[in-house]
Structure formats: C-alpha cells, structure tokens
C-alpha cells in the first residue's frame, strides 16, 4: 500500500520532475474545460491515450484506470443524449475520460516521495504565513506510518470484542478505535517531543 499506485518505469514521463507533470496536468485540465468542440475533445482524448504507451504503460492499463468510472460515464452519456444531443453527450463524456486518464497518468508515473518533496518545496513561500514545510512532511510521514498501525488496532479491537462475545456493532468499534487513537496520539506526541 505504501508504494502507492506508482508503476516503476524509466520512460521520459517517469523522469520528468513531479512539479512539471503537475503543472502540465493543470494546464491540460483547463484546456479540457475550455474546449467545446467535440472533434477537438476527441483529439485531446486520443492524445491522452497515446501518452500511455509513451510512458511504457499498456492500453489495458489505461482501460483499468477508466473502469471504475465507466458506469457513470455511460449513464451521463445516456442522460445527455436524452436531455440534449449526441454532440454534447460525446463532448462531456470524452472530457471526463480525458481528465481521468491524464490525472491517472501523472499518478502512475510519479513516485509518492517525489510528489511529497515537490509539495514541500512548493510550500516554501508559505513559510512567512506560518506554514512550516518540515512539519507538513512530518505530518505526512506520520499519517502513512499510522495507517497500518490503526489497521492493527482495528483488527485487535474486533478480535477482542468477538472474544468477549460482542456482536459487530459500529459504535462498539468506533469508540474504542477513537479512544485508543487519542491515547496513541498522546504517546506519540510525547515520543516526538522527547526525540526532537
């Protein structure tokens, strides 16, 4: 899980700095919203698809990225067809698909740690407003570190309740989870303070 969704590779897209990719995505996203000609939008969609092999990713991968959104894309297409016309139905559906593909592409070709570094640098100018980039990246690391720990806490609590004969009740899970989380927060804060 901690590797994230990144697909290791050595393509030009992989090697591009994370900041450049994010800027590119923002520009492409703006463009997609501005374009209102279905043919231009089709070109954008094809272009997004073409970037996948360029990044060493298969067409199947592109499809995998779109799959969760397919039902809603289809639904929207039909709704537009019914409410408006075929051209705007195609335009909106292709726009969404292109946006999703481009966003996935950035995610697939950029390491989590590179994005975090970029974020830390981008936050630098906010220093004078009291934002400390080092604290932000500490918070990120802590959260990543806590996810498996909380997963363990959760399964421990479930197990203990099962052992004590408690039926699965969401509240009986939520309360100990939150109380233990808060206690953990106290102890971890103490440890950080002791170590820094």
């Amino acid at each position, binding site marked *: 899980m901690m590797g994230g969704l990144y697909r290791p590779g050595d393509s030009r897209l992989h090697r591009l700095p994370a900041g450049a990719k994010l800027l590119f995505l923002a520009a492409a996203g703006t463009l997609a919203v501005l374009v209102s000609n279905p043919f231009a939008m089709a070109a954008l969609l094809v272009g997004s698809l073409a970037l996948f092999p360029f990044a060493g990713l298969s067409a199947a991968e592109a499809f995998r990225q779109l799959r969760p959104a397919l039902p809603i894309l289809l639904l929207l297409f039909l709704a537009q067809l019914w409410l408006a016309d075929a051209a*705007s139905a195609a335009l*909106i559906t292709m726009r969404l698909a292109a946006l*999703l593909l481009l*966003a996935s592409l950035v995610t697939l070709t950029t390491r989590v740690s590179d994005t975090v570094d970029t*974020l830390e640098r981008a936050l630098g100018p906010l220093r004078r407003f009291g934002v400390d980039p080092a604290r932000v990246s500490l918070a990120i690391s802590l*959260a990543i570190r806590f996810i498996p720990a909380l997963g363990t806490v959760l399964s421990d609590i479930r197990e203990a309740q099962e052992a004590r004969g408690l039926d699965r009740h969401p*509240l009986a899970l939520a*309360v100990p989870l939150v109380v233990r989380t*808060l206690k953990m*927060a106290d102890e971890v804060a103490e440890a950080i303070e002791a170590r820094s």
Partner: protein
Amino acid sequence: MSTRDLVLIALFAAVMAVLGAFPPLMLPIIAIPVTAQSMGPMLMGGILGAKRGVLSMLLFLVLVAVGLPLLSGGRGGLAPFVGPWSGFIYGWVLAALLIGWLTERFWDRLGPVSAFAFCVAGGIGVVYAVGVPWFAAMSGLGLLEAFAGSAMAFIPGDLVKATVASAAIVIVKRSYPLIGQGRTGAARA
C-alpha cells in the same frame, strides 16, 4: 500548533484511510460509492474541532493526491479529484470546518442531539451543497436531476453514519475531551 496537534491531525487522516478499508457499497447504476469515509468529516470536526479537523482532512486529501490508494475501493491519485463526483470530496473539507466550528461554539451544551444535528448539517448539508452542483456542472445535468442522480440514494446511509459519529463524539467528549479545556494530566513545557 503543538506537536500533539500535529500528531492528532496525522492520526485522524489515518483514521479516514482506515474507514476507506471498509468495502464500499456500489449502488447499481450510479458509480459513486456509499462509503464509510463520509463519516470522516464528522469525526474530524466533532472530535478535533474546526482548525485541526480541516487540516486533518486536507492532509488526507494530500495523501490521496500524491498517489496513495486510500479512498474506498483502493482508489487514489489525482483522478478522484477531477471526476464527476469529486465535489463530495471538496465538500468534506468544508463539512469538517462547519462541524468543528459548531462543536466548539456549543461545546458546553454538546449532547447526543446537538452532535447529531451538527453532523447532519455538515456531513449531509454541506457535503451535498458542494457535491451536487459540481456533479451538475461536470455532467451538464440540471441541479435537480443531479440531486436525484447522485445524492438521494446516500441519505439513509449518511443518516446512519451521522448517528454513529455523533455517539462517538459525545462519548469522546465525556472520556477524552480535546476541545474546550486543556488536557487532563500535568502541564507540559
């Protein structure tokens, strides 16, 4: 902001991720998940208060955006931020803000009923107020159609989640309050 605040913010971002591990319920036809994560803004706001709650939600969204698969169903990256249902996610931030603000404002009188009302106002009211217009804009549907097509099916589930969250908020207020007075235990340098 103290170290403890920082840790709390990180921990609740992680709680949000853990809520995402519960398998999402995909309603037939619409592809927006019914997810335990919509409880997140309620817990963050109602337990941490406005400032820490909002920062915690933002931190969670940053983790998603940088590519960790923490949304229900193991989704992540930037795609969830540009989809037709992404408005709900942005709504979570504002919901944590409102719920946190209300909780702090009425802390001394906070009980099961008021906590529930706050959770509904933020977790349903605010979330839908952002999510539905976004959905309408992205899909080209009218507001009403968008509401019928996206939000209505979630209301029963979200009411249940508000019940659970508000009960947790009240119990935590009683046993481990983080808002209002300082912490129990001795002073800390």
